């Protein structure tokens, strides 16, 4: 569920990026500032697109694990979420200390990734526990 929330957020930000519009952000204008900053693009690719691609892979892994109980998919998702958590930590640092503007969509995305990581960790703990004899 948390992964789906994050996918929705990155999907919305990707659409606004494609349309060249500003994300609905309330009175703070933080999203406008963050989206306009030089840090919103990596190697010519908008960060929102990268986030969407990342989350589509994550959703595919979660679905594989959910349907087939394939623990390898869960482990791969866990590894990706660790990577994603480190990256959103970097992006949050940029927001707070470099761009000096907070984008509520970015915060929601970061929280969803961290919650997804915690859930993946709990799921791994449960699946590795030996079944009752």
């Amino acid at each position, binding site marked *: 569920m948390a992964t789906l929330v994050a996918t929705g957020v990155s999907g919305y930000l990707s659409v606004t990026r494609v*349309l*060249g*519009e*500003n994300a609905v952000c309330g009175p703070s204008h933080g999203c*406008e*500032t963050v989206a*306009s*900053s*030089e*840090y919103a693009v*990596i*190697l010519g690719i908008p960060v929102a697109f990268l986030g969407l691609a990342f989350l589509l892979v994550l959703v595919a892994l979660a679905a594989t694990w959910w349907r087939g109980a394939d*623990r*390898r998919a869960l*482990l*791969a998702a*866990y*590894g*990706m*979420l*660790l*990577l*994603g*958590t*480190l*990256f959103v*930590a*970097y992006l949050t640092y*940029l927001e707070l200390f*470099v*761009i*000096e503007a907070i984008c509520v969509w970015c915060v929601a995305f970061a929280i969803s990734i961290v919650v997804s990581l915690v859930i993946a960790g709990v799921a*791994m703990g449960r*699946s*590795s526990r*030996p079944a009752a004899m």
Partner: protein
Amino acid sequence: MRHSIICWNVVHPVRAARPVGTNVPSVRRAHPARLPGRFCATMQASRAPPRNRRPPLSGKQPTTQTTRRERRAAERKDRFEAARDERKTRSNSGGGSSFINTRNMTILGVAVGVLIVLVVAVGQLGNKATGRLKDPAIAYRAELLDGTSIGKADAPLTMEVYSDFQCPVCARHSLDIEPTIVAKYVNDGTLRITHHDIDLLGRGTDESKTPAIGAVCANDQDKYLQYSHWIYNNQDGENTGGFRKERVISIAAAAGLDEVAFTTCLGTQPPADEVAATTAKATGELAIDSTPTIFLAGQKYVGLKSASDWGQLIDAELAKLNASSAAPSASAGASAAPSASADPSAAPSASTTP
């Protein structure tokens, strides 16, 4: 009756006591002394052992007292337990293969994450740390440049852009949106864009005022647009030292301006007065409280719009101009430039998103 002797090595008496998958008798029963060594046993068979017969997994020698059904049940139970043990072993190791397990995925996720963050951070923050300036790589046709304007003086439509050099949205308009508008409407003589630089975000500092004064000085050297593109492309936060005087001079030099003349101009009063007057007019008469604020044919638009949105607005204004020039009663010299007489009620509904 056949006799045969079977010998085996016992390295670990307890493990060897249950030789899974063999039909040799249990060591524990054959040799109570549980010591390592070589043991032999004599086996008797009334007939030759059948070929292709699956040995009991329990390792227990079937006795004459057990029935075939009991033996098969025992074999099934052994196979089930062996499979369960194998599953448990795989589960505890973390997955179905030797590589994909919890420990490896944790190491891999963290290592790849740290690597990516380091590479991206060096790429993004490297310029900031080293102080290198970034080239905007935008060039307009020289014959279209005219002071702070771009486009033919007799263009039927005008666009007046009010910006603050510290405003990141203004940078996006200048670097990403405006080049598309210029390519589509300015190059063919339809539109003329004029820029006005104001101090709206300085909040007590000189970081909006200094680059705006620099723009006046750059205009003196006929390099206004080159300078403004370089300034926008090298924004570094708001009121955090990014546009302190020394850095603005460095950016101007990188943009190709005469550094000595620019520095001298920056310290004189007339350019500062010009910026103050433009800011006073913008915040007073034009009621601008946010940047970018753009007037197209007299209509006020606030905030960022995509190039396609601007295209639609410009096309709509052109259609209006064509309709009025086609009408018999229309005056031949209708001006679309922003003026006090422009009718605000005619503003398109798509306008003004602060």
